[in-house]
């Protein structure tokens, strides 16, 4: 080792096509539904060190969520059917933007609705609020029987939702895709075409566990979203496929619980990563991931994430240089 190592650049812009930008100082983001509203983990870790965080899913009206049991453990994962318990967009706006306004860490608001107009209505309301860095549009929540999950399984409806949110706000718009879609690539293309600034994937996979003694499903909702290490290979594959085609940044998630997992997603073509289920077990790991990534970059002579994003994905690297800058979010600023 000669001299002092140059401190690697972990920053990324997840909305390079948007004048309002979405610049993160590092690519580690707690996922929606796993980090509350950012306040819950205040006594456990320094939330301000995170790249950003995504709020619990907000709906047009307050929701009390599903009946219990809402969660159950499965091999290397868990099933959840919380049912989007939240105070609704009005209750949300009364409480959180004024807190987040004073925070360094960018706050991303996850929204979910059952009608296109409602997505637009929420996006319009959020656009006027302080303390909000971006909107993540959930077109895939699998838990609400009459819910938005169907949007994410259909190319036309995914495009409609994205376009309506795009027209309602100048905030960066991230659209979160459902792994239940038959052709995830065409959904991603439709969403990009409709004006999304970035794409995040994957949401949970629909699963079920049976209580054999009671002879019925464990969860009161019967089905639940599968998350955790069990879903990681599916998620990596989908990130690889989507990042190989779209020219906007991709945020990868699904079963990330340590550095090796994060590197897989980055090399598959994700410009940033979200961590969900692993937070419940090891919240301190969120910050460890940032430190471990930086240490890994130093050890491997990597000065910026753009060098490794998509490194394992020939489709992604085949974009021309300018496209690559846009797609990775590492455009010279």
């Amino acid at each position, binding site marked *: 080792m000669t001299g002092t190592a140059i401190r690697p650049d972990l920053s990324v812009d997840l909305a390079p096509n948007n004048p309002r930008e979405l610049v993160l100082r590092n690519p580690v983001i707690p996922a929606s539904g796993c980090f*509350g509203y950012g306040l819950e983990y205040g006594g456990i870790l320094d939330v301000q060190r995170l790249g950003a965080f995504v709020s619990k899913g907000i709906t047009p009206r307050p929701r009390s969520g599903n*009946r219990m049991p809402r969660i159950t453990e499965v091999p290397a*994962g868990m099933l*959840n059917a919380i049912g989007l*318990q939240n105070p609704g967009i009005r209750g949300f706006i009364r409480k959180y933007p004024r807190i987040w306004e004073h925070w360094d860490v960018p706050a991303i608001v996850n929204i979910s609705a059952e009608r296109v107009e409602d997505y637009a209505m929420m996006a319009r309301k959020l656009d006027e609020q302080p303390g909000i860095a971006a909107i993540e549009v959930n077109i895939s929540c699998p838990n609400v029987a009459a819910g938005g999950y169907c949007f994410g399984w259909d190319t036309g409806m995914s495009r409609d939702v994205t376009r309506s949110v795009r027209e309602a706000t100048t905030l960066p718009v991230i659209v979160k895709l459902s792994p239940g879609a038959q052709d995830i690539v065409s959904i991603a293309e439709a969403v990009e075409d409709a004006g999304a600034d970035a794409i995040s994937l994957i949401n949970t996979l629909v699963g079920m566990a049976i209580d054999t003694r009671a002879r019925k499903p464990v969860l009161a909702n019967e089905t639940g979203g599968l998350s955790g290490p069990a879903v990681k290979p599916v998620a990596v594959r989908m990130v690889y496929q989507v990042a190989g085609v779209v020219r906007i940044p991709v945020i990868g998630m699904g079963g990330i619980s340590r*550095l090796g997992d994060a590197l897989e997603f980055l090399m598959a073509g994700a410009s940033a990563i979200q961590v969900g289920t692993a937070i*419940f077990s090891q919240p301190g790991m969120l*910050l460890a991931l940032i*430190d471990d990534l930086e240490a890994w970059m130093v050890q491997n002579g990597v000065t910026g994430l753009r060098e490794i994003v998509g490194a394992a994905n020939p489709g992604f690297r085949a974009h021309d240089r300018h496209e690559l800058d846009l797609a990775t979010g590492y455009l010279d600023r």
Partner: protein
Amino acid sequence: MGKAGAGTEQVKERNQRGWSREFLGEVTRVSPVMGDSSLITFAAPEGLVASARSGHFVEILCRSDESYDPLLRRPYSIYAAGAKKHELTILVRPYGRGSRWLCNQPVGATLDVLGPLGNRFEIASKSGNLLMVAGGVGAAPLVMLATEAVRNGLSVTYLMGAMTAEGLLASQLLPGQVEYVVATDDGSQGHHGFVTDLVPNYLRWADQIFSCGPEAMFRSLRSVVLANRFGSHPPVQVSVERAMACGVGACLGCVVETRSGMKASCVDGPVFDMDQVVWS
């Protein structure tokens, strides 16, 4: 890359800074109790020990960093805090995968702990006579509560139920001033029947009732109390148990339906007023 226990170093560092509720604690004592259960004592940062109150719980990661099984932490009520300034004790019955793993940890093993978490039992300022109703490992938070109450000069009657005499808490684990009355399903010690059968004898005496145990015991307690008390006196606080993930109110997986909506048992509980809970 991908080194096992990505969080370990980070947690150690924060242990030293001493503010985070996620910490590593070395097991200092393991004593058998209540037949197959164990009292497990582990080191904890002094500030956290000082903040622990009866009703609070900790969530423990019952696996090594290399494993994903069981994935989620397991919640345990605090049995004792501050006998030594930097130790917490929990009561663990080895019935699930997590608890079995935990009971097999030897002295010197390191536990990954999140806590203290949750709300606490509240003794009203006017209360002089406290009735506690414990079932199984539900004995744990009530031992801590009884110890606090006796220290403050309050009268405590501690009722405990178990399947057999072996499953009962040994009387010497409670302060000498506590009246300890037991019931067993098989009649091998004390009252032959449910612990809740004993409750009517104390309803006029008790200013408050505190309970922790299985859901079936709560149902029985509730019907006994509703059938025998006058109005809403004495009030009953119950510490409920739900399948839990985050422990900090983020995931909303552990909710309890109350008259004022769905409440997270990890932050709004685990202690609830019995009359506020919607019992299905």
